[in-house]
């Protein structure tokens, strides 16, 4: 029996291509490295950071934890629009643009 995968159950935000993600990362207002961190810490840190940003500012969270790519956008809710970039080798960047 095949091993289950997060990709089958986690609802990712819209995905960015490499070029768009790279450009967005360079213009990011704040980048948080959440590699190795698990629920609920990334959610808490995202909400705190978003609260301090201005409309249009971008927060980026880097993670290796697939569930966070769904939980973090849900945690900030309507305060930010979320996109995700996948490296293909287990790294993800969640982009949160403050509304």
């Amino acid at each position, binding site marked *: 029996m095949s091993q*289950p995968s997060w990709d089958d*159950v986690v609802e990712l935000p819209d995905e960015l291509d490499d070029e768009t993600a790279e450009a967005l990362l360079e213009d990011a207002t704040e980048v948080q490295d959440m590699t190795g961190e*698990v629920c609920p810490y990334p959610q808490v840190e995202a909400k705190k950071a978003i609260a301090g940003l201005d409309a249009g500012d971008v927060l980026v969270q880097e993670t290796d934890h697939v569930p966070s790519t769904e939980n973090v956008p849900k945690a900030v809710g309507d305060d930010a629009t979320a996109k995700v970039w996948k490296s293909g080798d287990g790294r993800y960047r969640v982009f949160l643009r403050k509304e």
Partner: protein
Amino acid sequence: MVEELAPEEVNERVQNGDVRVIDTRPPTEYEAGHIPGAINVPLGDLPSTVPDIDWDDTDVVCACPIGQSSKQAAMLISSYEGVEDDVVVASMAGGYEEWDFELETGAAADA
């Protein structure tokens, strides 16, 4: 949709011995205090660990800090072919933040 069980119901079913608890928190948090009899499978290890667990017809409930990633854990377990369709794989609503009942301490029990 994932079924959510209130901590009260989880506690009752744990006392009755008719549910299996999967604690998806890191080992340090698990060892500091967990639902009696819970099995510790940190969330990041779940995909690779699920096939190694001997699933039977006992219902399962996943528990995490706040009751959010436990829903994802429940969906992942349910998606595994080795878990029968009539086995309920639920999530504990509110997570350990809402758990006011007995806790067990110490290292992980075998899955």
